[in-house]
C-alpha cells in the first residue's frame, strides 16, 4: 500500500487527537510553587550527589535574576510559575526492576499510545520494524528503559538521567551544561534548576549504536510542568540515531514543557536526532488549553568531521518556542536541520534553528517547511553565522511556507552574519497558498477535498519526511494529515 493511501485510510479511522486521554493513577506531587526548597526536594527525591544539588541551586539563583523572553512572535497568557507542580511521579517505590512492577495503568497508557515497552513488541505495530530501545518518561520520571542489557553489550549507555547521575556521575558531570549553559536563557535556567528526568545516552568510541534509541515523553498530571533533560554523547567515530515522541492529555489549562537537550559529537561522530512532537495543541476553536513548549536544544559538534542532524515534525503544542541548533566547532563538521512545523486552529509556533560556524570548512543545511492553517501563526526564525576562523564555511537554507485558508499567517525571520569573506551562504524562501488549481486537479481525479489536501501537504513536506527513520516517517505522515483535518472548509 502506498504511504499516502495508508495515510488517508488511517486518518479516516482516527479521532482528531487520539492521545488526549488521562491516565488515572495515584501520583505523588511536590507542593505547588518554586523556591529553593522545591529544588532541594527534587534533588533529594532523586538521591542526587551534593554537586548536582549545588548546580541546581545556582541555576535557580540565575533564573530568579532573569526575565522571560518576549521577542518571539507568540502571544500567550503568562505562566504563573508559583502555581505549578514541579514534580509529579507515579506512586511507586524505587524504579521498577521489571515490567511486572509497573502500574498496569501506565503500561496500558503506553500500549494505547503504541509505544512498545515490552522488548518483544515492535513499535506502533509496524511489522518487520527493527528493534527500538525506549525510555518512557511519565510526567517527571522515567518509568522504564528497554533493551538496556543488549545495548550494554556494545558499551552503549542508555538510561534515565536520574540513573545516570547515580551510575555514571563522572560522565554527567563532564558534559551536563557544557552545551547549554545554566544561564543560556530563561527556560534553560529554569530547567537546570528543576529538571526531573530525561534520557542519558553515551556511545563509546567507534561504536555504531545497534538499534534506534527513543524517548517517549508523556505529560499526564494536571498543573504540572515537565522539565526533562536529555544528554547524548557520541564519542569519537560513534553513531547514534535517536528519536523522541511527545503527547499529552486534552486539558483546559495550559501546561508548561521546558526541556533542555544537549548533544555532544566528538571527532568523526554522528548523531541523528528526530522529534515527532504531538503535544495537545489546545482547543482548535477557543484556543483553550494546550502545551507551552519552550525548549532549548543544542548540539555541539566538538570534534573534527563530526555531524549532527536535527529532524523535527512539530504538529502539537499551543505555543512553540524552539530552535534546535548546531555549534560547528570541529573542523569540517556538519550541521543539518530538517523541520516540518504544522499549525492549525489557534496554534502559534516560533521555531527554527541556529547554525554557528566556528571551525574551518564547516557546512550546514537547513530545510524548513511550515504549514499554517486555521487561525494559526507560524514563524521560522533562523540564524546562520560564520566566525572569523570559519574559513570556507557553507550554508544552504531553504524555507518554504504553505498557507491553507485565509486566516493564518506565516513569517520568515532569517538572520545571516558572515564575519569572514570566504563563507558562502545561500538562502531560498517561498510562501505559497495551497493552490485551488492543484486541489481541483486532484479532486477531478477522484480524491475528496480532505484527501487532496493531505496528498498535497504530504508532497510539500516530503523532503523532510524522508529524513526520518522509516517507521516514524509513516507515523509522521499520519500526524500531518490528522493535524490538518478540517483545515479547508
Amino acid at each position, binding site marked *: 500500500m502506498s504511504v499516502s*493511501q495508508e495515510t488517508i485510510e488511517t486518518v479516516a479511522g482516527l479521532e482528531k487527537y487520539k492521545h488526549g486521554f488521562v491516565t488515572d493513577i495515584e501520583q505523588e506531587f511536590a507542593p505547588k510553587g518554586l523556591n529553593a526548597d522545591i529544588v532541594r526536594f527534587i534533588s533529594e527525591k532523586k538521591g542526587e550527589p551534593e554537586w548536582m544539588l549545588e548546580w541546581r541551586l545556582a541555576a535557580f539563583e540565575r533564573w530568579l535574576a532573569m526575565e522571560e523572553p518576549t521577542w518571539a512572535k507568540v502571544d500567550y497568557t503568562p505562566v504563573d510559575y508559583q502555581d505549578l507542580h514541579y514534580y509529579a511521579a507515579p506512586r511507586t517505590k524505587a524504579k521498577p526492576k521489571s515490567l511486572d512492577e509497573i502500574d498496569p495503568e501506565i503500561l496500558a497508557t503506553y500500549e494505547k499510545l503504541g509505544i512498545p515497552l515490552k522488548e518483544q513488541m515492535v513499535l506502533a505495530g509496524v511489522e518487520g520494524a527493527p528493534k527500538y530501545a525506549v525510555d518512557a518518561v511519565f510526567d517527571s520520571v522515567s518509568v522504564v528503559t528497554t533493551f538496556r542489557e543488549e545495548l550494554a553489550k556494545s558499551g552503549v549507555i542508555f538510561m534515565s538521567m536520574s540513573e545516570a547521575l547515580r551510575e555514571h556521575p563522572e560522565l554527567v558531570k563532564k558534559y551536563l551544561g557544557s552545551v547549554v549553559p545554566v544561564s543560556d536563557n530563561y527556560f534553560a535556567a529554569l530547567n537546570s534548576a528543576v529538571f526531573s528526568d530525561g534520557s542519558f545516552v553515551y556511545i563509546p568510541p567507534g561504536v555504531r549504536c545497534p538499534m534506534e534509541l527513543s524517548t517517549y515523553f508523556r505529560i499526564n498530571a494536571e498543573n504540572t510542568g515537565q522539565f526533562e533533560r536529555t544528554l547524548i554523547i557520541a564519542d569519537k567515530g560513534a553513531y547514534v540515531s535517536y528519536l523522541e515522541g511527545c503527547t499529552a492529555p486534552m486539558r483546559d489549562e495550559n501546561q508548561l514543557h521546558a526541556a533542555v537537550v544537549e548533544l555532544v559529537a566528538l571527532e568523526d561522530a554522528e548523531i541523528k536526532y528526530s522529534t515527532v512532537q504531538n503535544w495537545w495543541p489546545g482547543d482548535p476553536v477557543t484556543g483553550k488549553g494546550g502545551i507551552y513548549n519552550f525548549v532549548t536544544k543544542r548540539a555541539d559538534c566538538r570534534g573534527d568531521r563530526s555531524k549532527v542532524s536535527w529532524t523535527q515534525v512539530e504538529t502539537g503544542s499551543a505555543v512553540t518556542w524552539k530552535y534546535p541548533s548546531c555549534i560547528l566547532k570541529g573542523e569540517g563538521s556538519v550541521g543539518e536541520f530538517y523541520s516540518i512545523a504544522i499549525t492549525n486552529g489557534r496554534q502559534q509556533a516560533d521555531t527554527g534553528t541556529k547554525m554557528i560556524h566556528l571551525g574551518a570548512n564547516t557546512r550546514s543545511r537547513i530545510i524548513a517547511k511550515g504549514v499554517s492553517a486555521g487561525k494559526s501563526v507560524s514563524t521560522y526564525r533562523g540564524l546562520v553565522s560564520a566566525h572569523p576562523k570559519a574559513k570556507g564555511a557553507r550554508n544552504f537554507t531553504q524555507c518554504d511556507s504553505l498557507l491553507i485558508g485565509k486566516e493564518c499567517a506565516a513569517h520568515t525571520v532569517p538572520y545571516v552574519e558572515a564575519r569572514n569573506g570566504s563563507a558562502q551562504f545561500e538562502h531560498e524562501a517561498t510562501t505559497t497558498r495551497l493552490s485551488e488549481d492543484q486541489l481541483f486537479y486532484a479532486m477531478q*481525479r*477522484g*480524491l*475528496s*477535498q480532505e484527501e487532496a489536501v493531505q496528498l*498535497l501537504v*504530504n508532497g510539500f513536506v516530503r523532503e523532510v519526511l524522508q529524513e526520518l527513520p522509516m517507521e516514524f516517517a509513516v507515523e509522521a505522515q499520519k500526524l500531518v494529515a490528522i493535524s490538518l483535518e478540517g483545515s479547508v472548509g
Partner: protein
Amino acid sequence: MLKIDNLQVSVADKPILKGLSLDVPAGEVHAVMGPNGAGKSTLGYTLAGRNGYEVTAGTASLNGEDLLALEPNERAAKGLFLSFQYPLEIPGVPALTFVRTALNAQRKARGEGEVSAPEFLKLVKQKAKELRIDFDMLKRPLNVGFSGGEKKRMEVLQMALLEPKLLILDETDSGLDIDALRIVSEGVNALRAPDRSMLVITHYQRLLDYIRPDKVHVLAAGRIVASGGPELALELERTGYDRYAAEAA
C-alpha cells in the same frame, strides 16, 4: 451517455454559457470547436464541477445521473475525466502515488476493493510502455519539470488507468509537436469503446486528423450554433469562425 440541456453558466457573475444543449451517445466521439472566448473551457470545467463556475440554469447528466449535484471527486468516480489543457504540477507526490491514490479513491467511492500494489504496477508498466513513458519518470513528482508532451502523455496514462466513461479533452493538442500529438492521439484512440464517450474540445482542426470525431459542434458566444459530421471541421478550417461568431452575437 452525456446529456446537456439548456446549460447556462456564469463566471464571476458574467454569463459565459447561454443555453448550451448537447447529446453525446455512448461510444461516440464528439468535437466541440469554437473561437477563443466562446466558452469551450468553461464547458469542460463546469461538467467537472470546478469552483467558480456557477450554473444558473439547465441540466447535465451522465448515464441519467445528475452531474451538477455532485462534488468533483464524485463526478470522477461516476466516470467523468477531464484532461487538462495545462496539467498541474504536484510537487513531492510521485506520479505513481498520485494515480494509485486516485484510482483507489474512485474504487472506494464505487464500493469496489483496492487494487493491490503488484496488480497496479503490472497495469501501469504495460500502459506506460504503450504510451512510451519511461517507467522511472513515474517515480518523479507528477508533472514537475515535465515537458508539454510528457504532461499530456501522463494525462493519457491516467485516463487509461482510471478507465472513465466520459472523457473530456480540453485543448489536448496545445503545446504538442507532431510526434507527441501522434503518440497522445494513439493513446486516446486506443480508449475508444462502445461504452465510452469522448468530448474533444479544440480550437484547431489539426487534432481531429488524429482523433476522428463522429460529430462536430460549433460553440460560439455560449451556444452550439451548428452541428454536423467531420466535414464541418474541415469547412471551419477553411472559412474560420467569423461567420458563426457574427451569427451568435
